[in-house]
């Protein structure tokens, strides 16, 4: 196999307690899209017209027909598809309104799913992930175990995607391992 996992050395899928799982999501095609100043609306229109996708507001992500848009900062999004695809070419027309940079291999993503997911994340992320506060459709970037980590909630199972710089993949894996090592911290919140 030519492609190599960012998590080389770690098991690709592992079960933690209580039916909660973690697995690597790769490969992905990701393009960083930064609107030129004043072109945010034009960019949004172009994305909507071409891909039928609404660019998300701050702190949110949206998806349509396999294309996901993740907010990464004001005027800044990551457009993402699963698997390897020629996403840069697909998005080329957006270049009138924005700067496009391929970051498909720049990040490593772990998907954490199951009833203990929140309890585990209490031990990692300095974010309020309570269901009344953080819901599917939201994304946030923060510091965790001395790394920049982006967390994105996919559904209510709950499922979270965590991503970090690819070179830190092993350390993110390790951080999750440590965060899930002991018995659950609070049964109430993880229910």
């Amino acid at each position, binding site marked *: 196999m030519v492609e190599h996992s960012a998590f080389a050395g770690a098991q690709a899928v592992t079960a933690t307690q209580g039916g909660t799982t973690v697995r690597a999501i790769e490969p992905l095609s990701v393009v960083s899209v930064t609107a030129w100043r004043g072109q945010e609306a034009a960019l949004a229109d172009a994305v909507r017209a071409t891909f039928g996708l609404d660019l998300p507001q*701050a702190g949110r992500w949206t998806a349509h027909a396999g294309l996901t848009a993740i907010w990464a*900062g*004001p005027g800044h999004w990551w457009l993402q598809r699963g698997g390897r695809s020629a996403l840069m070419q697909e998005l080329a027309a957006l270049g009138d309104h924005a700067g496009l940079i391929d970051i498909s291999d720049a990040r490593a993503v772990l998907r954490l799913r199951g009833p203990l997911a929140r309890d585990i994340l209490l031990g990692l992320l*300095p974010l309020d992930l309570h269901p009344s506060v953080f819901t599917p459709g939201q994304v*946030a970037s*923060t*510091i965790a175990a001395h790394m*920049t980590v982006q967390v994105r909630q996919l559904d209510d199972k709950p499922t979270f995607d965590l991503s970090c710089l690819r070179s830190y993949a092993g350390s993110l894996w390790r951080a999750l391992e440590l965060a899930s090592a002991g018995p659950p911290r609070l049964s109430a919140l993880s229910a």
Partner: protein
Amino acid sequence: MRIPCPHCGERGNDEFFYLGAAGLTRPAADAQPEAWHDYVYLRDNPAGKHSELWQHAHGCRRWLVVTRDTRTHAVFSAVDATP
């Protein structure tokens, strides 16, 4: 401390990188040396309200102007540094 990022919401100050006083204007290329000395080195350093530059380095990566009381750490406002 918690800093209310105008883009991401309130976060712990460990997500941010601090630079120093905001509101300093970079002198023109042909400005006198005194103007540059002033810009690069001299600071009001007030005890009280202070406008300062923080970057939300682990979040949206935006540079922000945060206005904060240096005696109590109370934050009055945080806005994007791009005018």
